[in-house]
């Protein structure tokens, strides 16, 4: 396949420590390979178990070109399926949220149980066996209320990530939370530019003055604070509460608890908590943030009073959806304990500023004048890590034995 050879050459061409050659940011063939090699292959973070409170509640979305649906079954377990009917392939649930006692294809009403079994298919011949046509499952893992999916037949090992995240996230009570707000931000930029931007705070001091009030935007390789004395004090305080600080990581995930700026309790316009009923009721919500993120596409912050999720879903070579969600304690009453405009203010402003930065980056990268440039090891360590991870992943994808056999044949 021609585009595989070209991708291989381009990967070889990339200079270590530098941003990617231009085609990685705008070429439709490489985009298609990104979907195959990354989004069809990796674990993705799509939301929270509390978004599916009752049996039949579902969350449907398109990953690359693949519609999937994640649903709570009658026994209460969260399952996922490819959202394509086994009859002639029509999409079953429209993207978004809803509730269904059965999954019914809108085309010819083939009807599936919430376990994926085909229960009704009209006008099929006697020898048609419904058991041969269940919905095809996808992998789903729920960690302390956070939902991860993987479209691959054989997903990357999830166990180490679960082992690390579960004890650190569990105290935040995501299972006793509710979705306070969500939206999708459309960004005219390649998904990798959106992610590169999200993996560094080199740009923060100039571009995110609001976030900078609470968020430690100092130049550091991994968004941690550099004041050792403060960090030691924070670690001791967290340890006293039995809260692990980390940092801990694997090749495709990172988890760390870190303190906010001096005197700041939440990521808010003035550092004060935004929700009267905290999710983590310790030290008046002053527990910093638990940041957990996965390559290729996500980070979350779990604060004392709310949690924020940021996941990107690519929709084209130069278009990306940013899915943003805010969680608060389930007993927090809107208009009494919190209000949405204040709750989302800091991250909403940050998201929109970041969108402008990514779109501006895309325009410059598309130009004749673009040449890959060097990342700052000091300030862009996580970007470098993301891009190195991406290059490795794509090498593994195109170097798969089946592809080599195909080439020889």
């Amino acid at each position, binding site marked *: 396949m021609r585009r595989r050879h070209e991708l291989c050459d381009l990967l070889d061409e990339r200079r270590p420590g530098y941003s990617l050659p231009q085609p990685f940011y705008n070429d439709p063939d490489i985009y298609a390979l990104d979907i195959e090699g990354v989004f069809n292959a990796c674990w993705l973070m799509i939301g929270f178990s509390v978004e599916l409170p*009752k049996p039949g509640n579902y969350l449907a979305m398109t990953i690359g070109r693949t519609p999937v649906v994640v649903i709570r079954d009658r026994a209460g377990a969260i399952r996922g399926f490819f959202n394509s009917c086994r009859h002639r392939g029509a999409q079953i649930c429209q993207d978004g949220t809803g509730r269904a006692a059965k999954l*019914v294809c809108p085309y010819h009403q083939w009807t599936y149980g919430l376990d994926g079994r085909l229960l009704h298919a009209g006008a099929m011949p006697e020898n048609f066996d419904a058991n041969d046509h269940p919905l095809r499952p996808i992998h789903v893992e729920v960690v302390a209320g956070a939902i991860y999916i993987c479209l691959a037949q054989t997903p990357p090992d999830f166990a180490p990530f679960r082992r690390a995240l579960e004890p650190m996230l569990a105290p935040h009570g995501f299972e006793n939370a509710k979705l306070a707000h969500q939206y999708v931000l459309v960004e005219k930029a390649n998904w990798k530019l959106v992610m590169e931007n999200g993996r560094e705070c080199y740009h923060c001091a100039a571009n995110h003055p609001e976030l900078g009030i609470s968020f430690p935007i100092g130049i550091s390789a991994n968004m941690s604070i550099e004041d050792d004395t403060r960090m030691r004090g924070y670690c001791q305080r967290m340890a006293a509460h039995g809260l692990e600080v980390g940092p801990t990581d694997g090749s495709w995930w990172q988890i760390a608890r870190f303190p906010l700026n001096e005197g700041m309790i939440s990521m808010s316009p003035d550092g004060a908590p935004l929700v009267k009923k905290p999710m983590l009721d310790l030290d008046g919500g002053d527990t910093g943030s638990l940041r957990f993120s996965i390559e290729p596409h996500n980070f979350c912050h779990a604060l004392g009073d709310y949690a924020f999720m940021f996941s990107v879903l690519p929709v084209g070579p130069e278009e990306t959806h940013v899915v943003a969600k805010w969680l608060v304690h389930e007993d927090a009453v809107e208009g009494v304990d919190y209000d949405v405009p204040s709750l989302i203010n800091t991250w909403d402003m940050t998201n929109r500023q970041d969108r402008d930065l990514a779109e501006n980056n895309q325009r410059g990268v598309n130009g004749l004048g673009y040449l890959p440039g060097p990342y700052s090891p000091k300030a862009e360590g996580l970007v470098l890590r993301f891009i190195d991870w991406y290059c490795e992943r794509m090498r593994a994808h195109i170097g798969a034995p089946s592809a080599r056999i195909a080439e020889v044949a």
Partner: protein
Amino acid sequence: MLQQSAAAHTEAGISVRILPYDVEVFVRPGETILEAGLRCGVALASSCRQGVCGTCRLHKLSGEVEMHQNGGLFEDEVEDGDILACCSYPLTPLVLEWA
């Protein structure tokens, strides 16, 4: 009210009004609401006709039905007044809504 429902129990069957079309059909004994609706030319969607697929779902604004569904609706949806026309028989005059 009593008088009205008595009038609605004619030999032609039990009165079922379906909004927003505002048509009235008389469901004969042994007939489902879906069968009666189709007999009278009301545009009702259906597929499995055995209470599984939920395609024939209607919302009940008033009245009582006997329903033999097969999982097409959750119990709480039934409590909220949803019915499946293919497997529901009116016990009293009904006002239904196609939503």
